[in-house]
């Protein structure tokens, strides 16, 4: 590397060490045992009394992690070249990362309190493909983040200029450089987000069998104790234990609900969704402001979900999914944590523009067509009748006639399947497709035909007899399955979508 070259490489602010310190602690938390083991060895090996040893070990730990963080900062260099971001990092293992601007799917920034005071942000560059290819620019000037965003926006514009042309032709007003606020959320909304967070309710569902178990266990104990115990008051004591356990569990539940409300405030406080030309940008967060921008052209699917709680609140949660590397959890989404049903068409219009005007995300819309009713029969057979009779037959050897109780699974399963069936709905228009499904709530997934990567039509033996098929669309953000549709219609739709993909001159990303 020549001297001139070296001068071009930039250091971030030394405060980046905070970012790395956070990463180090995160890693330690993830694999606590292997990383902390040496520390314990140190703790046991050193002489002296316990307090001294703990203080010693802690200070060693703190010094080591801070040194590590500073080293990582010191070896981190970056450069903004003509059409890529170059990153050189690593203390022992050197990493060279060259990210082309047109590969960048989205830019997200994070700003904690310290960074905010110094006007710094941490930038994350999301690229299509593997998660390892992600670039971080910790603790850089806010102006650099803005410049990068602008740069990527321009990159997207050159790619999607054709797209703009179509929406301009629609006679729509497109104010250049005009950032419009689409949506804002207030404190009451945070409460709703927190309450509808899945975590709290998943926990409750998981808890239900546990409560039952304890109930039974203690119930049995009471019976035994009443007969066997020689002293009075055992029953009362056991009842006391039950109440205590229930109180603890309820307290824990309350804690989780409060924690998820606090989480909603931390993550989404003063949430704002802004449309800025071809970019959708969300900002929100109490201590750390999270900002996520995504180019409209990079959005693959739009998913509107309405779980049990959100149904009560009559609200939706919207996710704009981007390309993922295929492994679950690696996809990048722009999340709108809460929106009113009336806002869905507006958001759709913002995302899809004039390309997909007849898209519907409201699950109750009449436009959704049901799937074939044979779905119910075959699913009940597959998930209800077959396993239940098999288990009942197997269990009849040890259990005798009681094994017939396993057959009770069939009506439960039938209820579930018919519910799933009624939730399914397909809306295929000239430009895109929307699929509604769900069990307790609803989930509507919509995408443009031209974003599809590949299509498969599958027929099982019974489906073949009845002229039915299952359609599967593979998108860069995951696959969408449309079960039990007419085979002929499925083939027609596939041929049409293939035609749309192959005749599309626009980039899918």
């Amino acid at each position: 590397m020549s001297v001139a070259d070296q001068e071009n490489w930039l250091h971030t602010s030394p405060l980046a060490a905070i970012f790395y310190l956070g990463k180090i602690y995160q890693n330690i938390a993830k694999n606590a045992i292997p990383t902390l083991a040496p520390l314990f060895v140190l703790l046991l090996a050193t002489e002296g009394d316990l307090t001294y040893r703990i203080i010693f070990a802690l200070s060693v730990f703190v010094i080591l992690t801070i040194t590590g963080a500073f080293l990582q900062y010191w070896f981190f260099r970056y450069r903004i070249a003509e059409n890529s971001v170059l990153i050189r990092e690593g203390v022992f293992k050197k990493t060279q990362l060259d990210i082309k601007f047109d590969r960048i799917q989205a830019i997200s920034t994070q700003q904690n309190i310290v960074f905010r005071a110094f006007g710094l942000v941490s930038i994350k560059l999301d690229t299509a493909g593997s998660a390892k290819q992600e670039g971080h620019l910790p603790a850089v000037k806010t102006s650099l983040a803005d410049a990068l965003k602008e740069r990527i926006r321009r990159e997207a514009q050159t790619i999607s200029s054709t797209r703009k042309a179509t929406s301009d032709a629609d006679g729509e007003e497109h104010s250049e450089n005009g950032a419009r606020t689409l949506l804002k959320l207030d404190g009451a909304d945070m409460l709703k987000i927190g309450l509808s967070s899945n975590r709290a309710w998943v926990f409750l569902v998981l808890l239900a069998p546990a409560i039952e178990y304890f109930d039974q266990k203690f119930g049995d104990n009471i019976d035994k104790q009443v007969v066997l115990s020689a002293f009075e008051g055992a029953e009362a004591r056991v009842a006391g234990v039950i109440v205590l356990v229930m109180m603890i569990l309820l307290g824990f539940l309350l804690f989780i609900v409060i924690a998820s409300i606090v989480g909603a405030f931390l993550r989404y406080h003063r949430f704002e969704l802004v449309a800025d030309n071809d970019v959708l940008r969300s900002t929100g967060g109490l201590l750390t402001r999270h900002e996520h921008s995504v180019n409209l052209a990079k959005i693959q699917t739009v998913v509107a979900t309405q779980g049990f709680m959100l149904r009560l609140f009559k609200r939706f949660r919207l996710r704009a999914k981007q390309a993922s590397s295929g492994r679950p959890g690696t996809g990048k989404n722009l999340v709108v944590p809460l929106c009113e049903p009336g806002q869905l068409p507006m958001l759709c219009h913002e995302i899809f523009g004039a390309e997909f005007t007849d898209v519907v995300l409201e699950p109750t819309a009449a436009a959704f067509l049901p799937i074939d009713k044979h779905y119910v029969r075959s699913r009940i057979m597959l998930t209800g009748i077959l396993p239940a009779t098999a288990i009942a037959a197997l269990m009849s050897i040890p259990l005798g006639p009681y094994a017939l109780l396993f057959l009770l699974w069939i009506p439960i399963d039938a209820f579930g399947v018919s519910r799933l069936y009624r939730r399914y709905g397909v809306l295929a228009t000239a430009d895109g497709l929307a699929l509604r499904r769900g069990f307790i709530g609803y989930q509507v997934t919509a995408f443009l035909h031209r974003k599809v990567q590949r299509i498969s039509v599958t027929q099982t033996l019974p489906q073949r007899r009845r002229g039915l098929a299952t359609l599967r669309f593979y998108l860069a953000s995951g696959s969408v399955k449309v079960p039990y549709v007419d085979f002929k219609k499925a083939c027609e739709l596939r041929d049409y979508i293939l035609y749309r993909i192959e005749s599309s001159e626009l980039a899918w990303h």
Partner: protein
Amino acid sequence: MFENSEIAQDDLPQVDSVSWLGMDEKFVRRLLAENALALGFVIIGIVFLQFVISTAFADDNVNISLGWLWLMIPVAAVPFFVWPSISVPRKGYALRDKDIIYKSGVFWRTVTAIPFNRIQHVEQSSTPLDRHFEIATLQIFTAGGSGGDLKIHGLPATVAEQLRVFILDKVGASIERR
């Protein structure tokens, strides 16, 4: 002015009307060879197990018979050796100007279509056994990669190479047009 005139469904090219090309005729034999090898390993394993048991318990006068394991072999072998000649004829592929189509499956019949302008990259691979039968696998990757990428196993090696070059050429052309 942007135009988007309606196209009648019947005018669209139909996937089902293509003429399918089958897999390499040696493919069944190649699969049988693999199954035979696997079965051979299982037999060796059982023989070894029998040997170990008989030497270990030689002094104790205990006779442990592995007869049922030997019985399992022909039972397992029948589907092993019948299946390839059922499944292979039902596989097929077709190339069109703008996409590649692949069908497979006996009970679950799947027809997958991948447009060239959505392909990320193409990979050709072959195992030593494949090379002996001059067969290759073509793997086609699209973005996202969920549900496994399309794998076409059992193409003649020369055809696979031709396909790879042809598809890459098409992919490149579609990128340039953008």
